[in-house]
């Protein structure tokens, strides 16, 4: 019966969807194990005690005189009478027990002795009864090993193979780039230098965090295109905790690097093209948007407005000390806010600061999800000693991020933002007592990465792309060219990323997935190796998509996503993604496509030349 189950017969998209379910299941199983463990221990303690007593009794008896045993309650050793208080035999263990040591089973007149009763409870609580029953048919079946766990195992075996850098591309990096050293430099310095205007390519992708709460079970399905009805279903099937997907076009400017390369058909006008618009969110659960629609520019971080009403920004300095605890019994998440130190003045000129702390469990930024401490007066090192509580289902936790922000309350209830910390709970180990103790967290400037805020900037990804065609296609006709270039290659070097949403320890084990969708919906996928413990990973990993022609690519789209590898068996965390391509898909719609198209055309119309770009991750 032990047939092996694999995911590898399925499409990668399907595997991804299923994997997320498996990881969610794993989280549920862990909670279940947590629940069961004390049950086992309790019962062990109890049983040990009882058997000790019993052994004492047996030892006191010379020879197995059944008559004698009869005289004594097997559980409490009380002497039983011959006529009165004779005791009765327990049907569970066949021992004679006194009336005090019996427990009646619920809703019946049947009873068991205290030990059997306890035993029975343990079997119910742990599900042991089921495993015993099942073992009758599947004797070799591991007790608590679930189908999901097996699937995960087999998948992980598979994926360790695919994580290994893909086989060396026929066109190695040195072959591909004319002057690798120079380009490397450009990619790393110019590409990453914030002062240099990069070509920000911003396509709001419909990709979102795949780590979903259990209420969102179908929300990922829109990633699949299996049927015409799919597209209508995706939005309606969302639950409350789901966040809206928004589309924004952002400031775009031409990078120096493009000028440097002096592309012949540099169609885009030099200087910066600024365009900002937002489509209404696809689904707007009222609870999530009680603050109204919020749009902001990702370029100027300080001008963002995430709350209803205005607030000012101070320079962000200092740290905050708090602890996070979760009680699996009461489903209560507690944030124990202790102190802050070295805060910035809320009002620099007046040297005033009246700090308070506010929390949200992102993505929920509704007022119901807000918790606040009291306001401390005139201090840069306030002590709060307050506990902020949330009632939240364990399975929900993995999909949440704890946002802790510090504010100054000025006159006329003017609020000044003093800094914030975001702790992703997906990677938080609530069972580890070390993670429950107080920790200092450096305060950070407001990052536009809340799931419900319209523009999400989850960092920048520097890439370099080139279309490699076997012949010099300068004056060739497209049709002719295609015949020659069925073996064209799209070379892509994923240089590195920065400003990624890091874990609470400030690091990431990140990797990049690339997915090239061809006009026939065929998808080519590649994955970079994982770079461990780095906040600004430099993969310098090349993806080579083989056997593609230019005309195919003209209608293709390339999706790049950055992931944080799973820890503690939780989901891989999607840090952000960007899409390049000529065809804005349905979700991107009217607003998004044009800039991405431009960039893509640049690559396609300059075969065998590298184009560097920095993509904003959403």
């Amino acid at each position: 019966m032990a047939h092996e189950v694999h995911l590898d017969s399925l499409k990668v998209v399907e595997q991804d969807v299923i994997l997320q379910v498996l990881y969610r299941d794993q989280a549920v199983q862990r909670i279940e194990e947590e629940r069961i463990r004390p049950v086992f221990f309790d019962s062990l303690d109890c049983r040990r005690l009882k058997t000790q007593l019993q052994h004492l009794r047996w030892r006191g008896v010379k020879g197995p005189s059944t008559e004698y045993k009869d005289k004594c309650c097997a559980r409490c050793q009380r002497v039983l009478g011959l006529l009165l208080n004779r005791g009765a035999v327990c049907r569970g263990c066949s021992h004679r027990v006194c009336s005090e040591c019996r427990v009646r089973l619920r809703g019946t007149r049947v009873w068991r002795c205290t030990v059997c009763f306890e035993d029975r409870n343990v079997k119910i609580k742990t599900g042991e009864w089921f495993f015993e029953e099942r073992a009758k048919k599947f004797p070799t079946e591991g007790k608590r090993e679930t189908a999901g766990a097996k699937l995960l195992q087999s998948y992980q075996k598979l994926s360790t193979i695919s994580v290994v850098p893909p086989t060396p591309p026929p066109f190695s990096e040195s072959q591909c780039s004319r002057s690798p050293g120079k380009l490397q430099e450009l990619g790393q310095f110019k590409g990453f230098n914030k002062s240099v205007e990069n070509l920000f390519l911003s396509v709001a992708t419909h990709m979102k965090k795949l780590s979903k709460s259990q209420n969102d079970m179908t929300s990922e399905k829109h990633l699949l295109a299996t049927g015409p009805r799919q597209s209508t279903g995706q939005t309606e099937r969302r639950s409350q905790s789901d966040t809206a997907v928004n589309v924004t076009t952002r400031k775009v400017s031409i990078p120096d690097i493009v000028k440097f390369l002096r592309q012949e058909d540099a169609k885009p006008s030099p200087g910066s093209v600024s365009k900002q618009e937002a489509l209404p969110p696809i689904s707007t659960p009222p609870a999530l948007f009680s603050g109204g629609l919020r749009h902001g520019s990702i370029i100027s971080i300080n001008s963002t407005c995430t709350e209803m009403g205005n607030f000012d920004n101070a320079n962000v300095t200092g740290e905050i000390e708090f602890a996070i605890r979760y009680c699996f019994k009461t489903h209560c998440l507690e944030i124990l806010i202790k102190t802050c130190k070295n805060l910035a003045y809320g009002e620099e000129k007046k040297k005033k600061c009246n700090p308070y702390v506010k929390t949200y469990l992102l993505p929920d930024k509704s007022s119901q999800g807000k918790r606040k401490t009291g306001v401390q007066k005139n201090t840069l090192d306030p002590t709060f000693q307050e506990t902020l509580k949330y009632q939240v289902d364990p399975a929900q936790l993995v999909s949440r991020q704890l946002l802790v922000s510090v504010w100054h309350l000025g006159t006329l209830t003017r609020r000044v933002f003093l800094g914030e910390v975001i702790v992703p709970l997906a990677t938080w180990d609530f069972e580890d007592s070390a993670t429950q103790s107080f920790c200092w967290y450096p305060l950070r400037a407001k990052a536009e990465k809340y799931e419900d805020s319209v523009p999400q900037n989850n960092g920048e990804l520097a890439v370099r792309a080139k279309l490699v065609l076997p012949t010099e296609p300068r004056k060739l006709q497209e049709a002719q060219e295609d015949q020659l270039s069925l073996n064209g290659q799209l070379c892509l070097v994923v240089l590195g990323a920065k400003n990624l949403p890091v874990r609470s320890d400030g690091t990431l084990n990140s990797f990049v997935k690339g997915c090239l969708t061809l006009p026939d919906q065929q998808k080519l996928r590649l994955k970079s190796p994982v770079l461990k413990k780095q906040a600004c990973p430099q993969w310098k990993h090349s993806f080579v998509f083989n056997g593609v022609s230019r005309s195919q690519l003209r209608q293709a789209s390339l999706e790049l996503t950055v992931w944080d590898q799973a820890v503690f068996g939780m989901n891989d965390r999607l840090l952000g993604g960007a899409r390049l391509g000529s065809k804005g898909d349905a979700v991107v719609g009217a607003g998004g496509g044009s800039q991405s198209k431009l960039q893509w055309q640049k690559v396609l119309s300059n075969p065998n030349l590298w184009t560097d770009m920095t993509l904003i991750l959403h």
Partner: protein
Amino acid sequence: MASATDSRYGQKESSDQNFDYMFKILIIGNSSVGKTSFLFRYADDSFTPAFVSTVGIDFKVKTIYRNDKRIKLQIWDTAGQERYRTITTAYYRGAMGFILMYDITNEESFNAVQDWSTQIKTYSWDNAQVLLVGNKCDMEDERVVSSERGRQLADHLGFEFFEASAKDNINVKQTFERLVDVICEKMSESLDTADPAVTGAKQGPQLTDQQAPPHQDCAC
């Protein structure tokens, strides 16, 4: 005297049995019969007319109170599509109970019930509890499977039977609660008819010679 002991036992009983545990339930049946909708109705009290076919498997967790007990249900929703069959059948073995669903407006889905039941027999434990559910009973105008045929087939297969509607929220909660109850019954049966030699083995020496007829009433 009996009542006196009863009340004393009653005390012990209530303080001891208010714990929680977990049941795993699987929903199976042809694609588009409404498995996902049924689960959404139960877990989220929501319904959408749009059809998003399930990829592989999915689940939801819901905690209910039944007879003073807190029971956590992990309800697995399977894809009806044939191509996912290897994955979905892998989950049969972990399930204590099944909801086997067909669509009363879809003859083919009803004809497939027999096959689904065979799948359960093959991949699941012997005492698997199954409820047969004829979904979409709100669509009376398009009904092609009569209630009578549904009931007969259920009797034949030894399953309990419900007609339900995820859309109009008919018999959804009842179906799950009934399934929980029958699993509970099976559980008690399994525990209380267990061979004493097995249960008692851990408690010490066996006193087989003392296996007396049941003493239901306290003799003291």
